[in-house]
């Protein structure tokens, strides 16, 4: 399973961080080119692909690909 966050588009609203049931998303220490600390996945192996981060992201920054 793959989960990607588009750190360039991310506005750092943190809704994904707030609602991730595994607390598996955090703010990057590095800023993106807009000067915002974007969200990053902490450990991809811990991601269950529940899709809640995608659901709550206002900017469609997250993409999850998994074998159905």
């Amino acid at each position, binding site marked *: *399973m793959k989960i990607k966050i588009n750190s360039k*588009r991310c*506005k*750092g*609203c*943190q*809704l994904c961080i*707030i*609602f991730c049931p595994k607390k598996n998303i955090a703010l990057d220490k590095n800023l993106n080119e807009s000067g*915002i600390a974007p969200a990053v996945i902490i450990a991809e192996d811990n991601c269950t*692909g529940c*899709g*809640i981060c*995608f*659901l*709550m*992201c*206002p*900017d*469609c920054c*997250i*993409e*999850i*690909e*998994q*074998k*159905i």
Partner: protein
Amino acid sequence: MAKNYKRPDSLYDVATHYCPGCGHGILHRMVAEAIDELGAREKTIAIAPVGCAVVAYDYWQFDCAEAAHGRALAVATAIKRCQPDKLVFTYQGDGDLAAIGTAETIHAANRGENLTVVFVNNAVYGMTGGQMAPTTLLTQKTATTPLGRDAKLAGYPLKISEMLALLDGVYSVERTSVSNPKEAMNTKRAIKQAFENQLQGKGFSLVEVLSMCPTYWYKTPQESVKWIDESMSQYFKLGKLK
């Protein structure tokens, strides 16, 4: 259930102008998802509001009309009457739908126009700098209620959806929010249902969504979702009103 999550086809792959944590981004995506799932993109005509979402047509890949502030439901009425086979919906904020557009809203509903309305209620006027909206809560501070909304001076928050639910011409009214995953999923379901109602000719279907405006609530996105769950939805009760 394991599945793929990606941008719906009907949502252009562009950055939006919305503030971080603004509910519009979530709702634009849900609208696009619902329309794609229904295979309706090529027969959809959207009417954008005046408000932060005035440029919704930059984000959605279907035919779109701008309307004068508040008049979206009048424009939609005509488009639907002229083209009853199309999926016609309005996407309106609280000022557009419940202040300047109140007459157009009530009468389109009263006529039972077979339309879908996505009503984005964020209790403030975002685009113009955070002024009071009809749905601003009592004691809420805005640019035009700097001391907090006082019912004696500015009236009460308007429960327009409850009013519309009283009308015989209205088929369905629901209030949901995008402030937590459970409610967000419910919002997606409600919006898709409201589109399906139109496709099945069932009549006027409105979904009011309590949505975040962190900038003009002077809150972080985290505080904003909390405010919806703890304050806004205490006054604007979630659920099926009709």
